[in-house]
């Protein structure tokens, strides 16, 4: 039945299209070749066949899927289960087994996001450092950096993650015997904790003040740049802007009567108080993935700097630019354009690789979904949601990347 409909549709499409074309073109149609030799008909024909095959395959799979899900009494379009209790508890969250599945998933997204926002900047920072070290004229430093890159690039990230986790697990003491560095840091094989800022009175006002300070610093930046453009006096805009910002910060701190204080972590009766804390798997995972991603970013940084034509440096020399000026205005802007697209690719890889944290039990979105499968929650819908979330992450990142890349592109290249 379906087959018949498909053929009718195909035939109508094919001949309807030919008819339309003959009517709309000015061409003489008396000399038509037979359809199986007509390039235009062939082009449509191939597509119709391709669509047909895809359609048949798709409908076969879809039929099977519907029958099989019916057999096991599963409605793949029923998303009501999201409101049922999840049956899993998630560390360091206010979720318990009775919280709905939707909040568990949301918590997973939050945790994935937390790994990305911390891990990607760290990877870039560390990777750049290693990449530049490889270019160092210091033989030892460049060899160590090379060794680092060759080592970490050629090991599965999953292995690095699990290895780091197992080292943290066996290397750090249990909670009762936590290592404490001063009063500032606490390390044990469950959690790491460090100092943070705790709000006091007037903190809201202080936050607004600092926002204003940021705006003012930007204004100072622009003013100094304009001054430089007009008169040629060195702008020193970094110094000026930073000075403005820090100055206002200090004055505000005093004027508003100490709107915040530093809070140090402490374990009282197995409960962490004050400071910021993170789970050991989170720290291990982000640390390991940073090591791995940094080895790739280092290669990108190194390759992009080397890709700048030697003639560019020579041209800079010929214009009497200083070493710093040469790098700042000639080499780095060009290197950055080369490095940018593969960097975005690495960010995407980092995002996808956070799914490996499932192996060390950090509650990001993939491990939440696997836990839910363990509770016999419907796999199709959950997998659909999880894949959708990753696709969204990928799409957002690559869209931002493409936008920036488009603006970076050099005309005429």
């Amino acid at each position: 039945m379906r087959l018949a409909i498909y053929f009718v549709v195909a035939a109508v499409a094919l001949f309807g299209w030919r008819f339309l074309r003959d009517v709309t073109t000015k061409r003489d149609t008396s000399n038509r070749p037979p359809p199986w030799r007509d390039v235009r008909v062939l082009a449509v024909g191939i597509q119709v066949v391709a669509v047909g095959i895809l359609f048949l395959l798709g409908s076969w799979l879809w039929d099977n899927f519907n029958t099989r899900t019916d057999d096991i009494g599963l409605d793949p379009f029923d998303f009501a289960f999201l409101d049922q209790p999840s049956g899993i508890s998630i560390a360091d969250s206010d979720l318990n087994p009775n919280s709905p599945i939707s909040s568990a998933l949301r918590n997973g997204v939050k945790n994935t996001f937390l790994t990305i926002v911390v891990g990607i900047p760290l990877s870039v920072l560390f990777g750049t450092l290693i990449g530049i070290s490889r270019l160092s004229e210091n033989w030892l430093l460049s060899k160590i950096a090379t060794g680092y890159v060759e080592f970490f690039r050629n090991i599965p990230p999953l292995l690095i993650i699990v290895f780091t986790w197992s080292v943290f697990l066996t290397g750090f003491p249990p909670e009762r015997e936590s290592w404490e560095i001063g009063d500032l840091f606490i390390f044990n094989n469950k959690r790491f904790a460090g100092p943070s800022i705790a709000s006091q009175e007037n903190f809201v006002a202080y936050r607004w003040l600092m926002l204003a300070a940021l705006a003012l610093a930007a204004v100072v930046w622009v003013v100094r740049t304009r001054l430089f453009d007009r008169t040629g006096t060195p702008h020193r805009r970094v110094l000026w802007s930073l000075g403005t910002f820090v100055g206002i910060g200090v004055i505000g701190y005093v004027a508003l009567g100490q709107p915040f204080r530093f809070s140090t972590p402490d374990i009282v009766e197995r409960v962490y108080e004050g400071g910021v804390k993170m789970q050991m798997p989170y720290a291990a995972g982000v640390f390991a993935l940073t090591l791995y991603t940094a080895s790739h970013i280092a290669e990108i940084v190194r390759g992009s700097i080397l890709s700048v034509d030697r003639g560019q440096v020579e041209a800079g020399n010929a214009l009497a630019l200083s070493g710093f000026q040469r790098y700042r205005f000639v080499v780095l802007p060009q290197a950055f354009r080369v490095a940018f697209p593969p960097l975005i690719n690495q960010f995407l890889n980092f995002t996808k690789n956070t799914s490996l944290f499932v192996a060390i039990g950090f509650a990001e979105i993939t491990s939440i979904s696997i836990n839910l499968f363990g509770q016999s929650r419907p796999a199709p819908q959950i997998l659909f949601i999880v894949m959708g979330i990753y696709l969204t992450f990928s799409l957002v990142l690559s869209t931002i990347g493409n936008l920036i890349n488009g603006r970076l592109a050099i005309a005429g290249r």
Partner: protein
Amino acid sequence: MTDATVNADATAFAGTGEAIIKVENMDKFFGDFQALKNINMNVGHKEVVVVIGPSGSGKSTLIRCINRLEQHDAGRIVVDGIELSDDIRNIQEIRKETGMVFQSFNLFPHLSIIDNITLAPRQVRRMPKAEAEELAMELLTRVKIPEQAQKFPGQLSGGQQQRVAIARALAMRPKVILFDEPTSALDPEMIKEVLDTMKDLANEGMTMICVTHEMGFAREVADRVVFMADGEVVEVGTPDHFFDNPQEARTRLFLSQIL
């Protein structure tokens, strides 16, 4: 037609017998831009037609339409009695009968010189390998580089590459060869060797359409010169008529700029 000039007619041809290429009322659009406007042109057997004109005038598009590298939008093109239509068989037939030489050589870099030449005869004409290689060597001798047969295109100079490209076009034993600015990508000292090869071909009686900027070649070899501007054929004539006594203002302007 927005332009004041009436499109010149290039249907009268020199040479013998029936016209081998007939172009009738042909239009070509790139989107909304009309690249060719109502072209009428015939080419006779053993005739050498040189097409000249400013860049963007549609010369290359014209000859690329003749072997369907571009698709014409209206009018008729008939090559050796075969109409160029949407018929895939006709397209293949016409391509077998017309060789083409490109500005940028377009030799296949992954194949040796001899394989470059034998590829199409063996694949399209189903010629046995030994025969194809014999033919290739004969053609390489004709373009005066038989010793390069085993090398790869990257190892040859531009002039040598273009001569190989001519040999490759000849290997299909075409009735017509289309030259698309064959010397524009060459260093000055290599232009002569390619032009000499082309002159030899013309003297041997090959039917040729050449898009070129080489006015000396046009004057010496062409049976007819076709001048194109803005997608139209502006003026047609013998080289003597064309260079010494051009009729159209646009032709005179063009000649004054390049000569």
